[in-house]
C-alpha cells in the first residue's frame, strides 16, 4: 500500500430502500475518495442522501435497505463484497462514525466511565500490546477533549450532561478506538454556535495530530470551508460537484452549488431580502428523467430536461455534473 493510495475509495455506491414491495433509490451510484489524512466534506440539504451515504459505508442501515457498490476500497480491504462478520470486526476498529445527536447516542443506563472503558477496551482487544495515546486512562482522554474536571463526569449519566459535553466525550470515545477513517455526520448541528466552534476546533486538532482521514457530512457551507480539504456537493442522491474546497466554494461550477453559496452569503451579509432557491428538494427529483436539478435550476436549458448529465472534468481536480460544461 503506497503512501498515495487513498484511505477510502468509493465507486458507484447505490442504496435502495424497500417498503411494501416498492423500491426507493436514495443514492444513485456516487463515487468519491478520501485520501489519507484528508478531510472530505459531503455537503447537501436534508434529503440529499448524505447521511445515508455514511450509514451505507458503515452498514448501519435498517434491514429493508440494500447497499450495492462496484467497489469500496478501504486501505487493503475490499468492503463491497465483504461478509458481515468480517466487516463487523473492522467497524469500530478501523472505521468509525460520529453521530449527529450526542444526547441519544449514549446508553441511558450506564455511566460515562462505563462507555469510555469499553471503547478503550475495544482497541486493546483488537491489537494486544498496541498502546493508545492515553494509556487506557479515561481521565487523560477526557482532559485531552477539553474537559477540565473529568473526575466529576466519569460517574455521571448522559442525561445529566449538556450536548456539547457529551459530544466531546463521544469524540473522545471514537478517537480512543484508533480508527483510520472517521465518518462525522453533522456532529455540530444540534449544538449552540459557541460550542460548535469549540467542537470543530477539537476535531481539527486531533485530526491533524493523528493524521486521520475524515468524511465530514454537513449542510453548513461555512463549516465545510473552514474544515475540509475537498468538498463533494450532493443533490437528490447524486454528487453534482466535487473538487478542492476553495475551488468549489469560490468558483462553483454547478448551479446548485452556486445557489447554496449565494444563500449562505446572503445570510451572512444580512441582506434585506434573502436569496432563496425556489422549490424544494423533494423525492420527486429522483424520479425525473434528465437532470435532477432541472426543475429548480436558474440556468436550465432545453436539453437538461432530457439528458442526464455525467460528471465532467472542469479542471484537473474539479468535476461538475452539468450540461453547461459538457463538450
Amino acid at each position, binding site marked *: 500500500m503506497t503512501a498515495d493510495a487513498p484511505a477510502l475509495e468509493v465507486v458507484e455506491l447505490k442504496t435502495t430502500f424497500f417498503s411494501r414491495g416498492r423500491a426507493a433509490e436514495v443514492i444513485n451510484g456516487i463515487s468519491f475518495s478520501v485520501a489519507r489524512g484528508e478531510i472530505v466534506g459531503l455537503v447537501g440539504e436534508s434529503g440529499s442522501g448524505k447521511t445515508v451515504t455514511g450509514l451505507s459505508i458503515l452498514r448501519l442501515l435498517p434491514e429493508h435497505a440494500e447497499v450495492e457498490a462496484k467497489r469500496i476500497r478501504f486501505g487493503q480491504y475490499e468492503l463491497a463484497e465483504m461478509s458481515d462478520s468480517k466487516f463487523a470486526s473492522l467497524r469500530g476498529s478501523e472505521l468509525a462514525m460520529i*453521530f449527529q445527536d450526542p444526547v441519544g447516542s449514549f446508553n*441511558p443506563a450506564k455511566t460515562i466511565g462505563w462507555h469510555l472503558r469499553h471503547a478503550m477496551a475495544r482497541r486493546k482487544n483488537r491489537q494486544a500490546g498496541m498502546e493508545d495515546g492515553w494509556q487506557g486512562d479515561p481521565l487523560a482522554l477526557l482532559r485531552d477533549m477539553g474537559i477540565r474536571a473529568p473526575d466529576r463526569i466519569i460517574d455521571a*449519566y448522559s442525561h445529566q450532561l449538556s450536548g456539547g459535553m457529551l459530544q466531546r466525550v463521544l469524540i473522545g470515545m471514537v478517537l480512543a478506538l484508533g480508527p483510520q477513517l472517521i465518518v462525522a455526520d453533522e456532529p455540530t448541528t444540534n449544538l449552540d454556535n459557541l460550542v460548535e466552534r469549540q467542537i470543530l476546533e477539537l476535531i481539527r486538532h486531533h485530526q491533524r495530530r493523528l493524521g486521520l482521514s475524515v468524511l465530514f457530512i454537513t449542510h453548513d457551507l461555512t463549516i465545510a470551508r473552514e474544515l475540509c480539504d475537498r468538498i463533494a456537493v450532493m443533490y437528490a442522491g447524486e454528487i453534482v460537484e466535487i473538487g478542492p474546497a476553495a475551488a468549489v466554494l469560490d468558483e462553483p461550477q454547478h448551479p446548485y452549488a452556486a445557489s447554496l453559496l449565494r444563500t449562505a452569503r446572503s445570510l451572512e451579509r444580512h441582506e434585506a431580502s434573502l436569496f432563496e432557491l425556489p422549490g424544494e428538494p423533494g423525492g420527486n427529483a429522483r424520479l425525473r428523467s434528465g437532470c435532477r436539478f432541472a426543475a429548480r435550476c436558474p440556468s436550465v436549458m432545453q436539453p437538461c430536461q432530457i439528458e442526464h448529465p455525467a460528471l465532467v472534468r472542469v479542471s484537473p481536480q474539479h468535476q461538475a455534473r452539468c450540461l453547461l460544461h459538457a463538450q
Partner: protein
Amino acid sequence: MGVIGGVTTRLIWYSQRFTGALLLAVMGAGLIFFAMHAAPGDPALAALGESATPEAIAAFRRHWHLDDPVPLQFLWWLASAFRGRFGESLTIASGTPVAALIAARLPNTIFIGLYALLLAVLTSIAAGTIAALRRGRNADVIATSTAIFGISMPDFWLSYMLIYAFALGAGWFPAYGFVQPQVSLAAAIHSGTLPALAIAAPMAASFTRILRACLIEELQKDHVRVARSFGYGKLFVFVHFVFRNALIPYITVIGLQIRYIFGGTVIIERIFGVPGIGSLMVDAGFARDFPVVQACALAFLLCVLVVNLTVDAICTALNPRRTGR
C-alpha cells in the same frame, strides 16, 4: 452529589411510597368493611343458626359491637386488626380466629403465585426476545400467535386441559392436592406445577407481547446504532443496550398486571385443591362467612400493594433518572 445525599433522597422517596401504600391499605380496608355491611344477612343468625335464642343473639351482637354505629364498628375492627386479630370465622370453621386461618393458608398462595410469576417471566423473556429479534419472520409469527391465543383462554379451562394431558394422560403430575412447602419443597414444586402453569400461561402470553414491544422500541433507538458502530459484539449490544433499557418499561407494565396472578389463584386453587386464601375466599363466600371473606379480600389487597411497592423499587433501582441524582 455525595453518597449521603443519594441515600437520603432514596429513603425519603421510599417512605413516601410506603405511606401512600399504607393509606391505600386503610382505604381499602374501609371499602371492604362498609361494603360488607351493606350485604344482606345477619351475621349473628349466620353464626348461631336459625334456632338461636334472642339472648344469645343479643350477646353475640354486643360482643362484636354489632349495634354500634357503622363507622365506630370500623374503628373497632381496625384497632383489633392492628393487633393481628380479625375476628373469628362464623360458619366454615366456627370459632377459629380468622387470622389463624389466613396465616395457615397465605404461604401456599404466595408459593403458587411466585411459582407462576417465575414461569411467566422466564417464558416471556425467551419468547419475547426471539420474537423481537426475528421480527416479521416465522419465529415471531408463531410466538405472537401463540401469545394471542394464550390471552384468549380462560385459565380454568386451561387447567382442565393440563389435567387431561399431564395428570390423567401422562401421569406426570397430580390432578389434585398440594403438598405444602414446609412439609417438602420438592413435593410442593411437583404438586404445584400444574396450578402454577395454569395461572402462568395467560400471563406469559401477555408478558411476551409486552417484552416484544419494548424490545422492538429499544432496538430502534440511536444508542443501539452507535454501539454497533463501535463494533461491539451482538450479544453484548443486546444485553447492555437493548435488553437492559427495555427492562424498565417491561417491568413497569408487568407490575401492573401481577394482580391478575392473584386473581387467578382464586379459581385455580379451588380446582386443584390447593389450601390457599383463594379457595378459602370461595368457600367462605358460599357460606357467607363475612369475617373470613373480608379478611381474604384485605389479604389480597395487601399482597398487591406489596408487589406494587417492590416493582416500584426495582424500577427505580434500574433507572438512574429516578433516584433524584
